[in-house]
């Protein structure tokens, strides 16, 4: 009996590796600060928490919306983790989402895909989104290899450029803006046609979970297997630890940089495509709405584990939904969620010091 107890404790402690414990602690500390801030704002904490829970789990719609959002964060986060294996920091999720949204809108509206057999109508725009993201991620890769440009700076600048490119597209009638019928025509695209919208899993708009979920699930499993069980995953890690040693072992640094940044870009673009084809249906300014940064934080929080990305993406997906409802019902600005995220990132990065020298 004691053997069994000891075994269980041993298994539990192994599962609660310091890295997991620290991630959990960082989230708890940040959440406590969040509650303290709600208190300081003079809002009833119980009202705020009630609004938060209502916005996350209160209705089937809220649950599905939170999960759809988590899918976006998870894809961007997995991209971050893949690039991070090669010791690269991809901060370009925001721009990759925007490029995915632009490409998906353009193909869905003007690519004559509406009449294609069922399935193909939304697959083409989705593929276009992933390709646009790949291109955007690859630019950072090329700059890194050819000019030694720090990918953090290049992906950040590329994000700004993509966000303004999207603004340009929805402002200009020659690009994606819907035909101007009056001066009151909003600067946004037309709504995409029904066949190009992603099918809902239940077919019911009160629970709008779309096929992005199985797509993301498959990608998650593939990413987890590739990173931990394949030669490629090992090569990526080798390059991350020591590029010179890796190249002596015949692993091309340039190739690894290109593949990892392009893959991260593809996942970001795909996330943008899912957002547009699955939920928003109309492209407008502010489309990426900070999701790229949420995905980045989800990736950071996961400390390199794909399963961890899924957990933190779900956390942030529900956190965002709850935050939005808190603003509407209890009058707590959603900026509070950003404060909490910033604190999580800082606490985690600072905590690596106490875990030995490896990050």
């Amino acid at each position, binding site marked *: 009996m004691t053997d069994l107890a000891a075994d269980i404790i041993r298994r539990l402690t192994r599962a609660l590796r310091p890295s997991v414990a620290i991630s959990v602690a960082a989230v708890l500390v940040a959440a406590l600060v969040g509650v303290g801030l709600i208190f300081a704002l003079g809002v009833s904490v119980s009202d705020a928490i009630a609004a938060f829970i209502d916005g996350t789990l209160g209705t089937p719609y809220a649950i599905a919306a939170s999960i759809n959002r988590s899918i976006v964060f998870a894809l961007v986060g997995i991209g971050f983790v893949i690039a991070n294996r090669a010791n690269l920091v991809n901060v370009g999720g925001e721009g990759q989402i925007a490029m995915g949204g632009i490409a998906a809108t353009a193909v869905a509206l003007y690519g004559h895909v509406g009449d294609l057999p069922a399935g193909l109508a939304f697959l083409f725009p989705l593929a276009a989104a992933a390709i646009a993201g790949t291109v955007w991620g690859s630019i950072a890769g090329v700059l890194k290899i050819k000019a*030694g*440009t720090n990918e953090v*700076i290049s992906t950040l*600048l590329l994000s700004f450029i993509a966000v303004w490119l999207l603004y340009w597209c929805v402002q200009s009638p020659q690009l994606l803006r819907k035909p101007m019928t009056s001066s009151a025509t909003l600067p946004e695209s037309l709504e995409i046609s029904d066949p190009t919208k992603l099918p809902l899993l239940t077919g019911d708009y009160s629970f709008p979970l779309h096929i992005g979920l199985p797509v993301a699930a498959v990608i998650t499993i593939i990413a987890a297997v590739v990173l931990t069980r394949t030669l490629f995953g090992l090569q990526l890690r080798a390059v991350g630890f020591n590029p010179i040693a890796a190249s002596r072992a015949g692993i091309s640094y340039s190739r690894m940089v290109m593949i990892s940044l392009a893959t991260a870009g593809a996942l970001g673009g795909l996330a943008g495509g899912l957002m547009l084809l699955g939920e928003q249906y109309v492209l407008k300014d502010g489309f990426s709405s900070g999701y790229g940064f949420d995905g980045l934080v989800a990736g950071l929080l996961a400390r390199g584990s794909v399963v961890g990305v899924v957990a933190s993406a779900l956390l942030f997906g529900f956190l965002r939904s709850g935050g939005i409802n808190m603003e509407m019902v209890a009058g707590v600005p959603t900026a509070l969620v*950003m404060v909490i995220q910033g604190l999580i990132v800082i606490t985690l990065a600072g905590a690596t010091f106490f875990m030995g020298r490896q990050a």
Partner: protein
Amino acid sequence: MSWELFAVFIGSSLRLAVPLLLAGTGELVSERAGVLNMSIEGMMLTGAFAAAVGAWATGNPLIGLLICVLAVLPVALLQSALSNTLRANQIVTGIGINILALGATTLAYREIFGARSREQIPGLSKWSPPWLGDIPIFGQAVFEQVWLLYAGLAVIALVALVLRYTTIGIVLHAAGAEPRALDKSGVSVSRVRYLGVIFAGFMSALAGAFLSIGDIHTFTEGMTRGAGYLAIAAVIFGKWTLGGTLLACLLFGAATALQFQLPTLGIDVPNAFLIMLPYLLALLAVGGLAGRQTSPRALGEPYFRR
């Protein structure tokens, strides 16, 4: 283009370049010391907000400026402690601080001013240097500027002298290039780097104050709009030299000014393209226009004392 319009263009290029010039100089000092300080974006935003609140609450923009510098100091100390004492990843902590600063200033702004207020805030006064201000056409349009611009230029000139002619300049360079040698010679690498980051914080604070109480006399949510990242790009473009960095900042300032100038000339370029232009230039700049990059050798690497 008439001379009058050209003069206005030069004047507004200079004005729009000021936040970049100040923050870029701060970033250069920090990077010379070996710390890649991504958080100047957040520091600028914090500074812009603190200056606006201070000036609004006291009615005195000078007190606003003082409060601004004091408010950014803890942010700079946090970045220093994370990147030097705790040896955390400098890029990740910088981004964390930027997210925190954006969230915190937005939250506090909504609490203090209410959603999307357009209230005017008392701002810093303008000053025109003698003689230069009297030049016909150009005098007023180019040289009549908020005095913080001239104060900032004086600080930058001082930095140039210190970097070039003093021991401090050599010590800074060593902290970023050969930290171990500096340590062996008895100077604390950590202390030098702390001071480098704090100086970057001071300059970012001035840059932020210029944005809110110098230029437009109000605060808007997330008003830095990536200016901090442009300043970092300017340092790279300038190959970690002060002159190069300043030139790059002026170039980005001019690119921003075009956005307001071209429409008045009747040239029809999409507004979005013009807003994007500084970032596009910055990307081209860091992506090889500047040639092979020669960063301080230990840039971004925490120093471990053996």
